[in-house]
């Protein structure tokens, strides 16, 4: 039963120098094996391994090393029991690791219902990803509104994160679950370790789902007011939050104009940080709008 190929399963064979020269050819034959041949070897490998573990746990000083199983005797050669144990263990370990095969197929839970909406375009998905990392997250509500308006699927890879955030932000949760459709419930059931409910608790007071601020129509006036404030150097950092909300609500058609005009205003130290922030926010929003329009 000692299949000559067995010797070849082991790089250890040559590492130990047990059979020196012809090793490289032997090794070449090592991997693909027929299933019939494998079962025998795997059986004796398990028995060989069990014997070695039993002795190693107590120590070769206290427990004799069992004789090698069929097919594993080439490595039972050292005078020192401890060294022989390590030799034989290496042979088994390498045989098992090199002979690794997939386990039997497992029962799979039902897949999520098919979503017929078009997938979220990669650029939009990446934009959302940046906002979830904290970049201009003031615009999150608008992102969801535009995604819904275009009828895109959510970028599913961020769904767990959105649902987790939704546990503390019911307004966000409401909009995410509306856009996710069946997928949110499916995911909550499929990955219970996520700790998200399949159906959110009924709130005591009704929740307003997250929605973007109403659009400010008179873009021309807003742009000239903001730019004028910077030109007159009356803007300080204290005004920044309010200005950000204005930019987030501005008619998107005016964003590029705002960026251009703000970029050409003179440098003014007290307002500089705010100016840069507004430019970045307006650019970010402008890009987001274009991505959804594409």
């Amino acid at each position, binding site marked *: 039963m000692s299949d000559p190929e067995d010797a070849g*399963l*082991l*790089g*250890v064979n*040559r*590492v*130990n*120098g047990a059979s020196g020269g012809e090793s490289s050819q032997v090794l070449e034959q*090592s*991997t693909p094996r027929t299933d019939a041949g494998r079962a025998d070897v795997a059986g004796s490998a398990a028995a060989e391994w069990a014997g*070695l*573990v039993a002795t*190693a*746990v107590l*120590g*070769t*000083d*206290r427990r004799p090393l069992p004789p090698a199983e069929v097919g594993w005797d080439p490595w039972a050669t050292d005078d*020192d*029991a*401890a*060294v022989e*144990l*390590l030799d034989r*263990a*290496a042979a*088994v*370990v*390498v045989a098992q*690791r*090199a*002979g*690794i*095969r*997939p*386990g*039997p*197929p*497992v*029962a*799979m*839970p*039902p*897949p*999520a219902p098919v*979503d017929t909406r078009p*997938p979220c375009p*990669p650029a939009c998905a*990446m934009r959302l990803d940046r906002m979830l990392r904290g970049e201009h997250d003031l615009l999150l509500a608008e992102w969801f509104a535009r995604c819904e308006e275009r009828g895109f699927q959510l*970028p*599913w*890879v*961020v*769904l767990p*994160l959105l649902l987790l955030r939704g546990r503390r932000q019911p307004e966000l949760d409401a909009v995410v679950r509306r856009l996710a459709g069946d997928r949110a419930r*499916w*995911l909550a059931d*499929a*990955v219970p*370790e996520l700790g998200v409910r399949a159906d959110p608790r009924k709130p005591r007071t009704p929740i307003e789902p997250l929605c973007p601020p109403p659009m400010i129509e008179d873009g021309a006036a807003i742009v000239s007011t903001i730019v004028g404030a910077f030109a007159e150097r009356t803007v300080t950092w204290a005004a920044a939050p309010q200005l950000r909300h204005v930019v987030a609500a501005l008619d998107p058609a005016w964003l590029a104009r705002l960026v251009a005009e703000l970029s050409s205003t003179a440098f003014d130290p007290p307002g500089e940080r705010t100016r840069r922030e507004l430019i970045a926010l307006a650019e970010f929003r402008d890009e987001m709008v274009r991505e959804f329009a594409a």
Partner: protein
Amino acid sequence: MTVTPTPDQVLSLAPNRAAAMAATAVADPAAWSGAGCDDRAVWGAYIATAAEPYEVAVDLSGPAFRCSCPSRRVPCKHCLGLLLLHANHTVAPANRLPFVAQWLQRRGDHPSEAAVAVPDGEGGEEMPAAVERSRIGGTTLRRPPPETGPDKRRLERAERMAAGLRELDRWLADRVRGGLTSGELMDETTWDRLAARLVDAQCGGLANRVRRVAAKVGQHARWHEDVLEEMAILHALAVGAQRTGHLPVELADGLHAAAGLTSAKDDVLESVPTTAPWLVVGESRIGEGRITVQRTWLMAPGEDEAAPPTWALVLAFGAFGNEVETEFPVGQRVHADVHWYPAAARLRALVGRQHAEPVRAATAPVPQTLADALVACGWAIAREPWLERYPMCVSAVPAPVGNGRWTLVDDTGSVPIVPGFWRLAEIVAASAGRPIKLMGEWSNEGVQPLTIWTDGQVISL
């Protein structure tokens, strides 16, 4: 009495493949004049290039090398080329030329006493392998005495490593003698002392490995088996690394790399590259002590549908606190020369010349079945049993198997995902319970997913 070497033995003296090739070019009988040999030495004048011919001589009893060329490499390509001619029996016995007679006289009658086994490494960057490998006939071929600083350092390093390997193997046997349940193994300081000793012995690779094994002690009820597995692999490494002279060159190179002796970058870059449109498919970062190691996986498609892909691993290191710079972002295609570190299972590589600007890859890589991917892992482990990770790119469904454990499933079976993988829910959400294209690292614990491709997006996990 010396025996004529074989050409292979001569070439094994070359510090790297490029030097070996250069030596082969020099071994042209037409480029030599006055070549001759006797039973102690071989000599000649190399006339091919210089206005002034180089006087070349090799003392076969050392061996020792002498060449009037400006190269500081010992042996230089002229010495090796001359030896090659001699190995091919194209040098006829003759009377010694005057410079040869003088040189041999200076060397005296006991040349080999002063000669010592010195690895042909440099600052620990190369391999001591050649020492045992390189035999000329019956005489072990040895390097010149360690007169110079670098030579002495190399010698010391080889000795330190050998001592470290012996000590490691003794330590392993002692643990097996005393039993894995003895208190010593549970005591972290037992392992720390061994790791520290290996660091002293300049076997850094083994020290890190020992620390990873130590972390497995007491992890779960059957930890003895995990630890015995790793001790057995360490044993194979310790034994193998002491016997590299008897092993095929590439296996010896792999053993040295695992022990902590890696090839010099320059030598790797001199090797023959594999040129392909490489796809950057995965990236992982792990802290090893105070160093962050960034592993970037490149993949080149196989020749045809059935052929497995070729993998290359590019490592970058950042000292504690310093971010590693990402040279090859995941999702890019890099048309480049990839040079391999010598090993029996070639994975680690350097990117040399790039033939075009890196671009965003338009397509995702072609996945393998789980069965094929594991066969590739198995082949690699058969070649280098101490391999801890091997890449795979598959299309599979993540499915739970209970107790919070998950597997990847396709038509060919199932493969476990590493326990505690914290971004599992994201993969499941993206897959919707259907096959998803995924790249990951296979290890003994399962697949560690690194990248998924979904809806036109490449997502690094």
